[in-house]
């Protein structure tokens, strides 16, 4: 009897812990001694329309760094925003008005319809707070929101009087009078780098509806990339380069439908009366859904109806669309719209940029992270450990409330793409993040 009890106990003990052995992490050809992270918004932790402490602690760079620790990578040091501030948000790099990060809440629109909308609280930080230099440190996340490829090379990029100036870099530049992002990076003597060099080379233009800013000239782009990569690899460092996604898949461009102008017969009559005279029939309306009217200098009367494959941007005031004849009596402005020709410019540039990045990676044996393919897949929908995510605004679950930058969950998915590319290129074995540990959209 005793023997039987002993056997049962032993069996129970064995059975209690079925053994599974995880694959040992392996560095491969990754030298994790000094890792540097250079990129723009996602890499810096700019999310929900602002750079914030919370966003930085879920930045793409931070998340990649957590996994690189498995192969001996050190702690990531980031120029953290003080927790007290509710965000350093700028509408563009030259703006001096700081806005807070958004949160999601129920809000009544001009028609009294209550729906979930991103809300921006009043900012508790000023532009001076944003510019205030942090204690100098050897930050190894040197990512700067809004930076373009050639900006990373600009000396005095953190100097307020420079032609190319970025207050986010002024915050943490080693020497705000002279530093460039790349000189601060060289100062660390990186053995490995993660570089996201080119997002804003098209994104800034796209976010302005093609009305301001310009896409980086390809020659300038290629020179900048060669310089960046040459400097980063000068001492034999390996690294990963994140390519440029098709930014037009972002919810910022895909949320407002082109034919959201809903008209009843009275309104159709009114609008027809107005446009019949001036457009001689080129703009017409019918009861139900209609395409919005936009300004277009190339149209015969300087305005036309938007086409199904053109985009209305999230910078468009939607209450004006619903209640103030914006997009009908008052055509939408150039800055609110991406037209076919603008979209083509963007897509062509992205293809060229990515061709360049791919060929540099091939030449220098760098890991090529195909973020473009990731975002394309995302817009069709990804199922990840039982969660379906896609590129829809708010309900898609991967993008933050600015419709441009990913939320922490989205960043974790993209971080895994980076890790995949590194593992493939350098025969390393870096485990992926368990992405569901990182928050998606927060609901009220």
């Amino acid at each position, binding site marked *: 009897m005793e023997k039987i009890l002993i056997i049962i106990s032993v069996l129970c003990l064995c059975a209690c812990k079925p053994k599974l052995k995880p694959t040992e992490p392996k560095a491969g050809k990754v030298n994790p001694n000094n890792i540097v992270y250079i990129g723009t918004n996602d890499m810096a932790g700019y999310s929900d329309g602002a750079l914030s402490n919370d966003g930085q602690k879920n930045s793409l760079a931070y998340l990649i760094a957590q996994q690189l620790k498995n192969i001996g990578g050190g702690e990531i040091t980031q120029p953290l925003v003080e927790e007290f501030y509710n965000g350093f948000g700028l509408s563009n790099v030259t703006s001096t008005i700081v806005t807070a990060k958004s949160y999601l*809440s129920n809000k009544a629109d001009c028609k009294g319809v209550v729906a*979930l909308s991103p809300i921006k609280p009043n900012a508790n930080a000023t532009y001076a707070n944003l510019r205030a230099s942090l204690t100098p440190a050897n930050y190894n996340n040197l990512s700067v929101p809004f930076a373009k490829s050639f900006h990373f090379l600009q000396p005095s990029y953190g100097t307020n009087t420079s032609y190319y100036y970025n207050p986010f870099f002024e915050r943490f530049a080693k020497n705000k009078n002279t530093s460039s992002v790349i000189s601060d990076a060289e100062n660390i003597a990186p053995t490995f780098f993660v570089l996201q060099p080119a997002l804003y080379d098209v994104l800034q233009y796209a976010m302005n509806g093609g009305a301001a800013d310009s896409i980086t000239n390809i020659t300038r782009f290629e020179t900048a990339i060669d310089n960046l990569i040459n400097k980063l690899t000068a001492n034999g460092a390996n690294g990963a380069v994140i390519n440029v996604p098709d930014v037009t898949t972002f919810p910022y461009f895909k949320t407002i439908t082109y034919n959201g102008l809903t008209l009843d017969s009275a309104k159709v009559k009114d609008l027809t009366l107005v446009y019949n005279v001036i457009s001689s029939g080129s703009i017409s309306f019918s009861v139900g859904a209609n395409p919005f009217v936009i300004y277009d200098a190339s149209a015969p009367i300087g305005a036309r109806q938007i086409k199904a494959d053109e985009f209305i941007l999230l910078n468009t005031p939607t209450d004006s669309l619903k209640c103030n004849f914006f997009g009908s009596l008052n055509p939408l402005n150039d800055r609110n719209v991406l037209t076919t020709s603008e979209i083509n410019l963007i897509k062509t540039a992205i293809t060229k940029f990515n061709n360049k990045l791919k060929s540099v990676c091939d030449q220098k044996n760098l890991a090529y992270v195909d973020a473009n393919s990731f975002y394309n897949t995302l817009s069709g929908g990804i199922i990840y*450990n039982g969660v*379906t995510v896609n590129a829809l605004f708010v309900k898609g679950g991967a993008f933050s409330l600015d419709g441009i930058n990913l939320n922490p969950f989205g960043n974790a998915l993209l971080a895994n793409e980076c890790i995949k590319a590194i593992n493939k290129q350098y025969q390393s074995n870096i485990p992926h993040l368990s992405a569901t540990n990182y*928050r998606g959209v927060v609901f009220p």
Partner: protein
Amino acid sequence: MNSFNTKFLYFILIASAINYASGQGFQVNLQGQKQQGMASAGSAFAQDESSIFYNPGTAAFVRPGGISLGVTPTIPNTAFLDSASQTITRTQSPIGTPFTAYALFAIKDSSNLKFGIGVYTPFGSTVQYPKAWLGRFAITQLKLQTIFFQPTITYKINELVGLGAGFVNAIGSVNLQKDIPILDSLGNYGNAELDGRANGYGFNLGVYVKPTRKLSFALSYRSQVNMRVKFGNANFNVAKGVAANFPNGKFTATLPLPQVITFGTRYQVNEKLNLVADINYVGWKAYDTLAFDYETNTSSLLDTKSPRLYKNTFAFRLGGQYDINEKFQARVGIAYGISPVQQGYVTPETPDGNRFIFTGGWSYLINQHFQVDASIYFTQFKREAINYETKMSGTYKTAVVAPGISVRYIF
């Protein structure tokens, strides 16, 4: 800002109710300590009242009859190694307690007709994963309980052949929980709980043939039992701002418990040694789809149909019983079970795989009226799997120990 509706198409309830621990898929063969000691073979071995379950035809040859009560605490443990993150999750499932109660009696001692009743719990396990585990949006807990009541009539036609038939009335309950990927402002994810009572009907037929004293055969057929949940409660707990999309309400669902055809044989090697072998053919194909039909649908809460696509399968069982003396018997058994779950459809609540089963057991006859039977069951199996529906991918390893005991009063 644009007005957003709050349709969340990604809420797909997937679930299945399976006791993966002690038999492939749903099939459990912990319904008699003597059989359990021989890897759950022994349908052609007329020894005690548990033949009511294993083969009602065999029960005709059990004499004189009696009453037995048994319990088999089942200790399942599953570990999951996520292939992407290389992290390991261990289940926190409590011990299951399947029990059996049988009574078999004849109106007159000399009668060839016997009546019996079997009460047994073919499912009784809970699969529970830790809070916030990486598969939380697929499943966090599945608790399934069933009790089968089987009144049985069995008739010994002559010294060669016995026939038996039982009617099965099954009752049960299911409780399924998972998280919903909607985060509230306090950092909590939503949660769904489906809770319901189920019932179903079936039957159990068997024929027993004993051509010689040394040799016997058994063929039994246990029908499919469709467990229907008619007015289950679906409760959702999500961020207030979107709660209207997840109305609490009723749901219906059906879970098929498959038919089983068993062919068994017993051969008496000598006065002390008996060998038994059983083959089960299990009609798992019935479990094609798991569907939940919600009384109140919204754009976020649609009726769901999850493909399961199980296949029919076999289990092979071998066992032996040795009479040490007048009072003591010892048993061993080995079985091999083929999983009905196809690659691509393995779920965290059914990390099923092909497995070997090892068992042992003994009996002690205290006096002419009382007997104690005990058994121990052990299995361990591993399954590398990706699930098409949730895209979860990794390796499951499960180990189960089930020590059981029963007491028997012999008329």
